């Protein structure tokens, strides 16, 4: 720099700046420093959105857009504060670059957010092409012609590229508007249309207000207007807040949304009461009205969501009461039916056993058939009652030490005739070196676990074989964990589809086609088995390669 230039700069009597942005050179300090009020929440909100979904493309784009906006705001502050021409030239270039990226990223973000899909590679290249001249010519006189010392206003003078930049900005704003129209036309619901309209309005208002100050600045050569760029900043923050609610990036309570809007409103309102900023009053008033409208929309949107959530909670509570009433009714009906069935069972049993004297063979056959049906009925009702009691937690367990091996052998022997009637062979394999002593409710384990699983295997195997295995961790030939007994029932039956597998052990969890194979299935058997195994500290699960490929039920219980 020549001595003449140094003398000219000295003659301007600029104040020194500290930390790049603190300086007495700025014209309207409150307006200038309120930039920070927009910058900090913008970066915090964008950072929060990113943390809550770092892999989401829309979150990343929103974060990058906010980051570029942050660079723009910071760069703008430096250009207003600094007394060094080189700083002005560099940061002026930086804000021009950041501004171009804000527009591109805003468009990209809008597309991904509204259409829920990414741009294709070709689209990405085409839409990013307008950035190339700005990137390539950033540090040339096409971007900044030079530094204007003629009026001591500390300004750079923009080159022809500024016209390109403004055209590009209008192009992206128009693209957003165009895609918004397309999305609006193809939206399937009014809610979707409203969301698209609000998002597009917010983003375009922000982008245009952002540029408008700069455009007026260039063409009027009134550099104070540049600071009006602030009026885009609160819109952006409010717009971000709205997105957060829509994004559901985090659980923003109604009070949080109201506090955010109030803070924004106050931020702008304070500007009206500060002296010496008459020029800003009009712009600030517009901003104030805009923020107020946006705030009302935001609060109404959140209130609606909160009301819906409360309604769902209320309905949930009512449903719970109705459910309990139905359960009680079901319990009562089942109990009554069980009483009638038991009486009938007893009567047919006595007739069949000849307690009322000799009866003709035909009547005996009839009585025996009726007795078998009555017993089935009692078992079914008992199953429903047991499931109901287990759910209510009113089941008590008679815990005692017993040998599971004896129980398994007994149950298999008891069910063998039913299997043989279907020409199914039950093969039992018991680890001879194992020890099967455990502590539990023997009756419930026998009835609801062992019997249920073997009985199911018989019912769901039209032909083929069933194998029952019993292993223990005490045996040297096992890979089981410490102190465990494993009971396995394997069949070559109808198998289990992946859909049925998901609800196998749930209450009333019938398989899709199971009712065709076993019409008496209540769907409570496996639910009860699981409840009982769980109560004994064990676990139960099933394996199947799919429909028609058989299944394998495994129970692991703690051994003594």
């Amino acid at each position: 720099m020549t001595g003449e230039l140094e003398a000219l700069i000295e003659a301007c009597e600029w104040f020194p700046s500290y930390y790049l942005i603190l300086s007495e050179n700025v014209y309207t300090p409150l307006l200038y420093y309120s930039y920070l009020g927009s910058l900090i929440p913008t970066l915090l909100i964008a950072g929060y959105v990113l943390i809550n979904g770092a892999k989401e493309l829309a979150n990343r784009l929103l974060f990058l857009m906010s980051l570029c906006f942050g660079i723009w705001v910071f760069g703008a502050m430096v250009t207003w504060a600094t007394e060094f021409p080189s700083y002005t030239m560099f940061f002026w270039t930086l804000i021009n670059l950041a501004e171009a990226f804000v527009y591109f990223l805003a468009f990209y973000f809008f597309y991904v957010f509204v259409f829920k899909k990414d741009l294709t590679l070709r689209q990405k290249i085409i839409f990013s092409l307008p950035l190339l001249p700005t990137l390539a010519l950033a540090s040339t006189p096409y971007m900044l012609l030079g530094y204007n010392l003629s009026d001591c206003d500390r300004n750079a003078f923009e080159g022809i590229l500024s016209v390109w930049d403004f055209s590009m900005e209008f192009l992206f704003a128009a693209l957003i508007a165009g895609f918004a129209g397309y999305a609006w036309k193809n939206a399937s619901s009014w809610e979707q249309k409203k969301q698209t309209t609000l998002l597009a309005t917010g983003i375009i208002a922000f982008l245009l207000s952002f540029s408008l100050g700069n455009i007026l600045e260039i063409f009027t050569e009134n550099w104070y207007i540049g600071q009006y760029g602030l009026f885009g900043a609160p819109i952006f923050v409010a717009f971000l807040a709205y997105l957060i609610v829509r994004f559901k990036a985090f659980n923003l309570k109604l009070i949080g949304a109201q506090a955010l809007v109030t803070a924004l409103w106050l931020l702008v309102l304070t500007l009206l009461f500060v002296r010496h900023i008459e020029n800003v009053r009009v712009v600030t008033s517009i901003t104030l009205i805009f923020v107020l409208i946006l705030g009302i929309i935001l609060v109404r949107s959140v209130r609606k969501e909160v009301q819906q959530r409360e309604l769902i909670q209320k309905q949930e509570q009512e449903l719970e009461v109705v459910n309990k009433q139905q359960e009680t009714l079901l319990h009562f009906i089942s109990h009554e039916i069980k009483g009638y069935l038991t009486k009938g069972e007893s009567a047919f049993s006595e007739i069949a056993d000849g307690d009322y004297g000799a009866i003709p063979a035909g009547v005996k056959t009839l009585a025996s058939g009726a007795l078998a049906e009555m017993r089935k009925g009692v078992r079914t009702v008992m199953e429903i009652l047991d499931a109901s009691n287990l759910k209510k937690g009113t089941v008590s367990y008679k815990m005692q030490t017993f040998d599971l091996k004896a129980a398994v052998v007994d149950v298999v022997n008891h069910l063998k005739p039913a299997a043989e009637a279907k020409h199914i062979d039950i093969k039992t394999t018991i680890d001879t070196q194992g020890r099967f002593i455990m502590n539990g409710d023997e009756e419930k384990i026998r009835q609801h676990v062992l019997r249920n699983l073997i009985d199911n295997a018989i019912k769901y195997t039209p032909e083929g074989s069933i194998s029952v295995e019993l292993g223990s961790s005490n045996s040297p030939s096992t890979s089981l964990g410490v102190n465990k007994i494993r009971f396995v029932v394997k069949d070559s039956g109808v198998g289990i589809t992946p859909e049925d597998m998901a609800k196998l052990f749930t209450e009333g969890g019938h398989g899709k086609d199971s009712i065709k194979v076993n019409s008496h299935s209540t769907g409570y058997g496996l639910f009860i088995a699981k409840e009982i195994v769980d109560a004994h500290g064990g676990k139960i699960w099933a394996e199947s390669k799919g429909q028609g490929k058989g299944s394998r039920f495994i129970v692991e219980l703690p051994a003594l």
Partner: protein
Amino acid sequence: MKTTKESAYFLAILLGLFLTAVAISYYRYMVLHEFQYFVTESDIPDRFEMSSYTSAL
């Protein structure tokens, strides 16, 4: 919508170009101080007429 590898690379390339442009500007303006000063109003060239511009070099 998760970020695909293609989009991640695309954004990384854009970021790289942005940083390169910033670095070149930094070097030119902050290190070399290579820019023109307009001392009087008449020095300011017409931005639409680049031939009126005199380089700082």
